[in-house]
């Protein structure tokens, strides 16, 4: 029963990792850009939720109604300016630029809001949970986040396969030059993909703030988890990211159950083992491999 609870907690946290990771996966899949500032942008979403929404007379639970549109727009603008500029140089530059952004964002947040932890206030909901058996606790927040993750992945998949814009995104992702020859404006398509990715980043950042405390430095460690989820699940597969996130969550919870010190370590070991044994991941294609 103890182990069953560990498993349940792993699946729950895995849902969050998948939500965090799908933007990373989308940005790489379409733009071939690894956004090293991905985690920090989620943290920014958390700060916007905490410090902006109360001014608008909105409860923080509903902050996503404001933050997600802001990030969708910001994603498009950032893509069409800074990120496109670095893509035009070479992939190497995108890494340097996004890493630079990451460090700048983190230290700016530190200077403005100090290193104190913040949470997105959701009232009583934080403490409520469902327990179907004596020692199994399913927190409503975590369950909600898992639900949102599955919903977001489902909608993304639906969007990419059923709509015209979605088909254009896939066409540009598969072969940019061929899509361009067929008349696709790839810069605009890149912008659309980036705004989708940023919308999920905003959701992930708010979800994180509801689940636990965050600080300016929370971005880095979450980027690592998201990245591990993507690689474990398989680069380029959205549902693979969900499986990868859950596998990572379970590994971490099992590690933590043995010794709290082993929580993150167990996830890293799973990641390195997948890299050694099945580098394309569980559901992946071999696109990112050397």
């Amino acid at each position, binding site marked *: 029963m103890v182990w069953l609870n560990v498993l349940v907690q792993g699946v729950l946290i895995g849902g969050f990792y998948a939500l965090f990771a799908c933007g990373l996966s989308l940005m*790489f899949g379409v733009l071939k*850009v*690894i956004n*090293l500032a991905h985690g920090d942008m989620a943290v920014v979403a958390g700060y916007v939720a905490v410090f902006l929404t109360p001014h608008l007379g909105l409860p923080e639970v509903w902050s996503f109604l404001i933050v997600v549109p802001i990030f969708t727009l910001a994603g498009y603008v950032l893509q069409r300016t*800074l990120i496109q*500029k*670095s893509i035009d*140089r070479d*992939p*190497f*530059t*995108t*890494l*340097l*630029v996004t*890493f*630079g*952004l990451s*460090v*700048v964002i983190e*230290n*700016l947040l*530190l*200077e403005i809001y100090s290193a104190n932890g913040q949470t997105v206030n959701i009232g009583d909901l934080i403490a409520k949970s469902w327990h179907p058996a004596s020692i199994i606790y399913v927190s409503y927040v975590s369950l909600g986040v898992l639900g949102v993750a599955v919903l977001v992945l489902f909608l993304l998949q639906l969007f990419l396969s059923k709509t015209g814009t979605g088909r254009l995104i896939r066409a540009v992702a598969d072969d940019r030059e061929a899509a361009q020859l067929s008349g696709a404006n790839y810069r605009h398509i890149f912008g659309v993909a980036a705004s989708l990715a940023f919308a999920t980043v905003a959701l992930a950042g708010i979800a994180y703030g509801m689940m636990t405390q965050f600080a300016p430095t929370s971005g*880095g460690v979450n*980027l*690592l988890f998201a*990245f*591990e989820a993507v*690689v474990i699940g398989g*680069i380029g597969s959205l549902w693979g990211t969900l499986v990868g996130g859950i596998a990572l969550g379970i590994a971490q919870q099992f590690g933590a159950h043995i010794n709290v*010190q*082993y929580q*993150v*370590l167990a996830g*890293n*070991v799973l*990641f*390195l083992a997948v*890299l*050694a044994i099945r*580098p394309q991941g569980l559901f992946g294609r071999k696109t*990112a*491999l*050397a």
Partner: protein
Amino acid sequence: MSESLLNPSASGSTISVRRSTHSPLITLVGASVVVVVLTIAPWIFPAQFASTLMNFFILVIMATMWNLLAGYAGMVSIGQQAFVGLGAYATLYFALKGMNPFLTIPFAALVCAVLAVPVTYLLFRLRGGYFAIATWVVADTVMLIIGTIAFLGGGTGRLMPGLQSLTPAQTAHYSYLATWIVAFIVVVGTYLLLRSRVGLVLASIRDDEVAARSAGAHVRSARRLVFVIAAAGCGAAGAVLAISQPFVQPTSVFSLQWAAEMLFVSMIGGLGTIEGPIVGSIIFFALQQTLQQQGAWYLIIFGTVAVLVALWQPRGIWGAIRDRFHTELLPVGHWVSEGPAKE
């Protein structure tokens, strides 16, 4: 120093190939003066300045190694702090076993080099950004493992033994000299490496990897060698860092800040040049000393400048100077010019 490659009869001009843009004698004399001044620095400058100079050397070592990885071998690593930390802890371990901390430095570098070899077999399966984040995962993993070892102080860290018998002035002088010697070896070693056959392979990879491969260059082994050398260099930097601190703590020696600093310094100074990381380090320290009362602002400004440089001046400050004045202090490539050789 020069050779005529071909003599096109149509124009009647010759093409000459030279290494130096000026007489190597000037470089040699200039370098000798700098070396002498830096060697006696702790005796002629105030202690505070010598201590800043020591931190400057540590950054020069790291940035030179990062530049070798990224600027010459095309590998963006944001996990070099793995080897900085490992070097620091290797020194701590040997010192706890009774060795003189200063004598452990080469062994710390060796430990890092040996450990880097299996790491390359894992990491070289990924490329580009995935390689970059995976290096960070490795650094995080190493930090977490070190944090579980009680003998090394676990998560809280441990004081470096073997320095307490020295007077503070002696400690300062010896650590300064150790850091300076390591920095000297790293910069000169990198210079010689890049002028060697390996340097030629690296230049060919940088220019066109596919062409280099098809011409028979051992791309992967050249990259592996560079990764191992960079690990050793960062390990040595970690070792001198541990001695200068001298309290060794996982979160500080494995800090991502090292990766950020080496990246920014190399980029601003100029990737793919020997002088770039040194120029970048000078600017970094000037900025840090000026803004040291303002918290993290020096990092914010420096990061912003690095992003702008990457977008609009990717060859960095030294690259711009070189392109404008056609001058190099430590040439590793060749200059091709029309007309008869001048030397």
